[in-house]
């Protein structure tokens, strides 16, 4: 029998696990209408911004909410909810997801390099922009609005989907909170009050210009607020990040605070199984992410040297570096590829292969942290759910079946491996660093794999239990 024959027909037939109820169809239909109006708004958004907002983003969100409530709260019981993930055209690599990938990628290209084409949509969000920022919208505000709506609506879906798991509920609420408040409302309100636009939830090197001399100068010009922002940026980047990572692991940022992580955990949750789990991908990952970190560190250093020397020695070199970084990494990688490839490579492409903040957090997590995923390895049945649903492509099972703590630089601590495990094998924890590494701390391999010859206690136990 050829194993490739397992389920060929399903791939054509679609998802046998789904029978859509009329409410689900209503939700899907409303979202579809919302998308249609979004398209129309692209041409005519300026004609009646509020009407188009309601008809596009409003219907899209309403449809999403109705669909999620019906599917996850009403139809499915509280528990692991992965029926049909590998069958549904929307969650496996398919015609649909490739289409979607191109659509999102294309949107980023327009946003970055041809914003004029999005004029109708930008005007559509003017009413929101005037309300919270006191000025007209631009393409970045449009982007921020879309982004925040996506995190909120899909976050709502994630909370319903994971409603049996308090870690997931709290964590999802956290990313929704930080996106809405620190990455959307506060920067907007700062603008309204004539203060510098500032994102308190991003630090160098993810927000690389927050440690550029030019940014410091610009912020400090605006007085007290600006000085506070400079201090915040420096203290968080070099003290806050290591201290918090020591206590909680990388996750305090990557799956609780960060906007990139926030979008991945909400809108991207449905594609987490598409990440590449191979050893080869892990190798590529280590090379890439650390190269990006080296690149931005060098760029930042050059910018500073250049400033100290008044541009005398390096001339345009540092500017060339920072422009190249901004184009290649800041825009093309983190945006176009990072989000655009969600539907075909999983939602953490940027976080895994590119993000220099993740690189730093990862090194800290590996060498200076109390965080680990502990294994209750004796109960492991090597089923593979943990590895399959790891969005970072970590082969969790390889550790679980060996009884080894999982301490990987890339682990963002989303907790989904522990959630999908059917046997209670995995647990995310912070604890003493002693014995965290190298040896299975709690389930020594010998305890589960090796026979105990002449173990007296074992004999006593057997007698106690079975002879009466």
């Amino acid at each position, binding site marked *: *029998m050829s*194993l490739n*024959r*397992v*389920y060929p027909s399903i791939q054509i037939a679609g998802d*046998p*696990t789904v029978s859509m109820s009329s409410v689900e169809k209503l939700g899907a239909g409303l979202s579809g209408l919302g998308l249609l109006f979004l398209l129309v708004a692209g041409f005519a958004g300026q004609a009646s911004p509020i009407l188009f907002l309601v008809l596009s983003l409003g219907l899209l969100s309403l449809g999403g909410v109705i669909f999620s409530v019906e599917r996850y709260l009403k139809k499915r*019981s509280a*528990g*692991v909810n*992965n*029926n*049909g*993930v*590998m069958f*549904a055209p929307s969650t496996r690599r398919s015609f649909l997801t490739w289409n979607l990938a191109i659509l999102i990628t294309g949107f980023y290209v327009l946003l970055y390099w041809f914003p004029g084409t999005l004029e109708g949509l930008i005007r559509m969000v003017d009413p929101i922009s005037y309300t919270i920022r006191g000025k007209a919208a631009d393409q970045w505000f449009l982007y921020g609005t879309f982004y925040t709506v996506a995190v909120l609506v899909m976050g709502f879906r994630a909370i319903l989907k994971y409603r*049996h*798991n*308090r*870690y997931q509920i709290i964590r999802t609420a956290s990313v929704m909170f930080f996106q809405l408040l620190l990455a959307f409302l506060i920067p907007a309100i700062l603008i309204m009050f004539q203060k510098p636009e500032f994102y308190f939830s991003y630090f160098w090197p993810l927000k690389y210009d927050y440690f550029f001399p030019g940014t410091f100068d610009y912020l400090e010009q605006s007085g007290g607020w600006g000085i506070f922002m400079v201090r915040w940026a420096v203290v968080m980047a070099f003290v806050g990040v290591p201290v918090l990572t020591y206590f909680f692991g990388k996750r305090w940022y990557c799956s609780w605070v960060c906007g990139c992580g926030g979008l991945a955990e909400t809108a991207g949750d449905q594609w987490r199984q598409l990440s590449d789990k*191979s050893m080869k991908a892990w190798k590529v990952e280590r090379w890439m992410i650390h190269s990006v970190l080296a690149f931005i560190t060098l760029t930042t250093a050059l910018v500073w040297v250049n400033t100290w020397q008044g541009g005398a020695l390096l001339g345009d070199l540092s500017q060339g570096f920072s422009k190249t970084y901004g184009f290649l990494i800041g825009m093309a990688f983190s945006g176009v590829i990072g989000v655009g490839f969600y539907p075909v490579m999983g939602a953490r492409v940027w976080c895994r292969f590119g993000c220099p903040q993740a690189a730093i957090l990862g090194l800290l997590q590996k060498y200076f942290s109390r965080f680990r995923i*502990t294994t*209750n390895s*004796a*109960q492991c*049945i*090597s*089923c*593979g*759910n943990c*590895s*399959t649903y790891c969005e970072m492509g970590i082969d969790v099972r390889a550790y679980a079946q060996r009884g080894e703590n999982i301490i990987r630089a890339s682990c963002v601590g989303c907790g989904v491996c522990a*959630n999908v495990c*059917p*046997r*209670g094998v995995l*647990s*995310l924890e912070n*604890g*003493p660093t002693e*014995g965290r590494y190298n040896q299975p*701390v*709690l*389930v020594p391999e010998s*305890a*589960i*794999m*090796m*026979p105990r*010859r002449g*173990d007296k*206690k*074992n004999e006593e*136990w*057997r007698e*106690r*239990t*079975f*002879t*009466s």
Partner: protein
Amino acid sequence: MKKNVVIIGNGIAGITAARFIRKFSDHSITVISEESDHFYSRTALMYIYMGHMTYENTKPYEDWFWKKNRIELVRGYVTSVETDGKKLHLAGGNVVNYDVLILATGSRSRKFGWPGQDLKGVQGLYSLQDLEFMEENTRGIERGVIVGGGLIGIEMAEMLNSRNIPVTFLVREDEYWTNILPHEEGAMISRHIRDHHIDLRLETELKEVLADANGSVRGVITSRGEEVACQFVGITTGVMPNVEFLKESTIEVKRGIVVNDYFETNRPDIYAIGDCAEFSTPRSGHPPIEQLWYTGRMHGETVARTICGERTTYDRGVWFNSAKFFDIEYQTYGFVSNVPREGEESLYWEHPDGRHAVRINYRTSDGVVVGSNFFGIRHSQSVWESWLRQGKKIDYVLEHLGAANFDPEFYKQFEGRVVAEYNKRHPGKELTLKQKRGVRWRKEEVET
């Protein structure tokens, strides 16, 4: 001396043996399987059907692993073993020589000779081929009947349920799996099964499978004389060793391949491990045939040590197991009898939501704990093993119960309620929970 080791069967037992033989030696290793090109996790079959994973996802090792570790994989069916000439005969005529042979051929589904049991649409679930049959047999059907209230039965019910196929579930006992579970736990799981809209029929067995004009299933008749129309019948009344091909050989076979505590058969240089092995003198309280994932793993490692020169007896250690019943996870440590045993007390606590329960059994005479059941609550195997080995008493276990908790962070911990239940039942006792979950507490319990 370099030996030529041949393993029949690429399940967890055979593959673990192969991996450890490679770890300990430079022997040449060949693994023969009829079922699949590569090792995959049999326990994950249900997840393939439900669409949680693909077949690829169920492989614990990437395909390059085998070549890199010099483990040769052969796809083929062994028809007979020629023990004198140390040769295997494969279907198609190929012959494989061996110096050392490990039989790890697993199980096959057991049927009880019901009329109609071989009709199209009647099957068990053990292998990848069974999964493929199930895929074909359940497409577009209106109802499936599952026979046998055990672990595979409930999995099959969940599988059909995931595809919105109505299920009738025939269980011989008075509640689900009460040949193993105490009545309260069985009743709780029965309710949970019904919550998932399964037509659960207790104290009901299969009597006959009915055929339509094409030789396919059209229904069953139960022991209560009721007829249930269905197009699929899942038989999950246990498995038996897959040893047919040895009937003509000189290797001793009873139900399984007879082995001693070193997994040695009656023939030199031939070992049997995993589901297909039967201990000639099982220790008291141990079943003669062990059909668990983790015992397969232990068999594999033990036999590898023996083959590589360190003759090692098998010792399973403190019993434990786990399963999942729809949304409720189950773990058990030590020995919990399904019916009350003389000289034992039982502390049982169940949450009103019907999704969490704890049972701890202990000896009346001295309070030594003999076993525990957990439902909807994860506990640490290493802590429980440590407690049971040391013969910890009920008061100690209850006071430290929080330390064994292995649930995710932020989960409500119910150990305090278990302690309160104990205090309530034993006026005068005022035990308190000393710790909650945490790496440090767990470590202390394991190391004491």
